[in-house]
């Protein structure tokens, strides 16, 4: 479950982003923590409101929230496409607000990649040239970047359309070009703004698998925006839920559905089938002293990294009060209370 290590790659410290005529001057005049409506009444939009967040190396953080809740803006602050109004963003320990233009360009050339919500393809370049664009900016030579770009175009399944221009492609195909382009430089930190929104379910699934593979393999840090909860569940290590510019809760998917921090999050996740989200380990209570040998004697343990839904049949048929849960190596780590698990399975309030 945890593919992450502790050291944060991106650290947001109380960042704010206001849109309006004189955001800096206005922000300085604010006292305390004013709410969204007050700021709005003053003619400003608080697209990001007092967000603190730390993203560890190799982590995949999924940001969710309604349209206009500030997801894209938050991500743009993290890579300094827009300047924050207040607060600080640290990338690998450096305050990127303080980087010189040159240092920023270097950082982006070597470390960052982004897929844009509206694809942002260059209309006058072919698919291949679009994908090669970041390589060209880095000054890589022609043959090398051609080969690399071709490889990426194949990866996203656009082989045979290398010479097409963006306007000759469908929306989903254009989006794949955007994905291929961001992959071309193998960024360590990857910002994905609804990268699969225009894809059909089949290709979407393929792309998700590809992302998971890359992340597993290369340990990328990924910030991912989506409106699709299923997608979030498949990919996320943690999910951040935003509302009116502020983060309501950042947590693992299990805890978001089991223990929503606010009413808003509860409503947001209301329609989610909890059994599909919650893993056996999360519900299990840890072993107490001496219980280990008893548990093993009690019969076959169930795999902890399965969801309750996947274990449904077993749970219904198994009549033990506490079912032992094992980790990936087969060692028993806890005991799953059956009644609680069944409550989750049938969607009852615990």
């Amino acid at each position, binding site marked *: 479950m945890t593919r992450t290590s502790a050291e944060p790659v991106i650290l947001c410290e109380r960042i704010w982003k206001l849109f309006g005529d004189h955001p800096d001057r206005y922000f300085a005049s604010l006292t305390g923590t004013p709410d969204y409506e007050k700021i709005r009444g003053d003619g400003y939009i608080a697209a990001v409101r007092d967000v603190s967040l730390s993203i560890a190396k190799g982590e995949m953080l999924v940001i969710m929230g309604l349209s206009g809740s500030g997801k894209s803006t938050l991500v*743009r602050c993290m*890579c300094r*496409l827009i300047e924050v109004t207040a607060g600080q963003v640290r990338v690998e320990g450096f305050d990127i607000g303080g980087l010189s*233009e040159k240092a920023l*360009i*270097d950082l*982006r*050339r*070597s470390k*960052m*990649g*982004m897929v*844009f*919500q*509206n*694809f*942002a*393809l*260059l*209309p*006058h*370049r*072919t698919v291949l040239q679009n994908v090669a*664009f*970041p390589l*060209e*900016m*880095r000054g890589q030579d022609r043959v090398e970047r051609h080969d690399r770009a071709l490889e990426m175009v194949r990866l996203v399944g656009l082989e*045979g359309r*290398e*010479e*097409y*221009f963006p*306007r*000759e492609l469908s929306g989903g195909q254009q989006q794949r070009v955007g994905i291929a*382009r961001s992959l071309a430089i193998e960024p360590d930190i990857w*910002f994905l703004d609804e990268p699969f929104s225009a894809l059909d379910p089949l290709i979407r699934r393929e792309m998700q698998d590809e992302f998971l593979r890359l992340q597993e393999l290369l340990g990328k840090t990924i910030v991912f925006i989506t409106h699709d909860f299923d997608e979030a569940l498949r990919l996320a290590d943690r999910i951040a839920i935003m509302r009116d510019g502020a983060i309501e809760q950042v947590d693992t998917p299990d805890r978001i559905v089991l223990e929503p921090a606010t009413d808003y999050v509860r409503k947001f996740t209301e329609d989610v089938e909890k059994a599909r989200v919650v893993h056996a380990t999360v519900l299990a209570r840890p072993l107490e002293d001496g219980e280990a040998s008893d548990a093993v004697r009690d019969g076959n343990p169930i795999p902890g990294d399965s969801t309750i839904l996947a274990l449904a049949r077993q749970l219904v048929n198994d009549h033990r009060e506490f079912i032992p849960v094992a980790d990936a190596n087969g060692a028993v780590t806890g005991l799953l209370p059956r009644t609680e698990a069944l409550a989750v399975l049938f969607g009852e309030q615990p």
Partner: protein
Amino acid sequence: MTAIVTGVGAEGNIRAEPDARIRIGRWIILLAVLLAVGRFALPPSLVRPPEWLVWPFADWINFSFNFVKDDLGFIHVTRAFAASVEWLLDVTANLLYGRNRWPRIGPIPWTTIAVTAAVVGYVLNGWRLALLSGGTFVWIAVMGQWRWSMETLSVIIVAAPFSVCLGLVLGTAAARRPWVERLLNPILNIAQSLPHFAYMIPVVVFIGVGPKAGAIVTIVFATPPMIRMTLLGLRKVPSEIIENGHMCGATRWQLLRFVRIPTARTEILVGVNQVIMQCLAMVVLASFIGMPGLGQKLLQLLQALKIGRSVEIGISIVLIAVWLDRCTKAWAQRQPVHFHRDSTWLDRHRILVVWVGLVLLTLAVAQIWPIADVVKRSQALTISKPLDGAVDWVIVMIDPATQWLRGFLIRYVLIPMRDAYLWLPYVSVLLLLAGIGHMIGGMRSALVCAAFFGLIAASGWWDRAMITTYMVSFSVVLAGVFGLPLGIWAAGSKRRSDIVLLVCDTAQTFPSFIYLIPVVMLFGVNDVAAIGAVVTFGTVPMTRYTIEGLRSVPESMLEAADMSGASRFQKLLNVRLPVAFPTIMVGVNQTVMFSLFMVIIAAFIGTQDLGQEMQRALSSTDVGKGLVLGLCVAFMGLMVDHLIIRWSSERKAALGID
């Protein structure tokens, strides 16, 4: 339907304020009328601008001009620039028509140039454009106008790239830095409403006369639209595309070179089109400052009333105009198309190969048959004899009618109208304009109007300006009388409007000079001819915008009218015209601009307005006087522009259309 509903709502909201505006405006106009009626009782200083009001602007301009030119040594800069332009002109002159200058390899055979033009036309837009392009050059060569045409084209070839580069640089700077835009905007506004001659006088002072002066005045004149289009294009680049450039680690220069400019390609190429058309218009007019070529020939022939020959030249100019316009427009609209992946080098470059083949062929043919190299004067065809015959016949046929019309117009319309304009005390004109301004845009517009015309009064050219005003206002009314019904008729069906729009588009590409040929043919050289030219020139935008306005009326509104049982006429009167009116007013705006330019150009066929004085200033190279006169014309245009734009945007907002 929704548009109507919201329109009413919006109008309801802003009702209160316009009422007060209009009431005050009416009072001001009433005062103006009272002053006019009581003219005999007014002190003279309220009838004509008194001495103390007239400021010596011309002297100040001349003084600062001389300071910049001599004391700051700016003349050396312009001389050096002119020298490099001249060098480029010599190179193109050698290549195109064999002037004896470096690199001394010309002239390129006319057949080679014609096939090259045809191939370019084909690449840009297929066979029809290829035919037009090739045909233009065949006509020019066969009619024995090669040398003049090439003199004209060589200036365009040199001047257009300068204008384009200058426009790109300034436009980019304006797009990046708000203060540059703020600085450039008023300058561009004035520059785009200054008549052609106002540009020529300073150039004559700095550079002298001849081809290089013609080229430089062309460069200066053609740059403003390029700046505008570059700015517009760069502004329109989607922000995500730029952000993507940032994320790919592009430096500022890379961002500009690889992201911003290519993405703004269409607008920039539309700018190139405008530059080239402006160049052509100016090159033809630059004959007034000794620029050889088609314009000069036309000027001489027109002054000698050789109608047949001038028609021939006119056709050449029109062909070149249409050719240049179609090619650059096709270029702007061309979208890249991909080749199949397995295509060979030959597949990809087939047209290049064909072109090289054709060039080699024509070069060889030119060696064998000299006529394929250069068509000599003695070998050239001419249609001037039959043309002259036909024209004479037509003139004899309709002469009684034109004679009568001319006499009638001059005696009963033009002279009384002119006298009336001149009779009006200047204070009442100022008040009248202020009143109209107040009705349309409140206090600010009233001040703007009064200030523009107040400056004209202070320039000392009030009477001349009134003559220009009378000619323009009469012409605009006539243009409306012709253009509006024509537009309404054409907008009746898709086919008709397509055809009329095509005619208008084509006519708009003609250099203004061309419009003088038919009117001189019909009316000779006098005021009526000038008005005729202005009206013809001005009818084109009038018609065009009427059609566009009527055709853009939302379908839902028409359906709603149909359902209410409106007859066709009721529909036109109550729905289509009111909704189209803001667009039509934009047409009126252009008509005024076109008319102002044309009135000034028409000066050389004998008018007594600002244009005539401007010609005098040109021949005595009086920069101050020329610029003051030019600014007077510009102020008239800017005032009308201010009023109409103000009115039509408010109206559009109220109607809920944009």
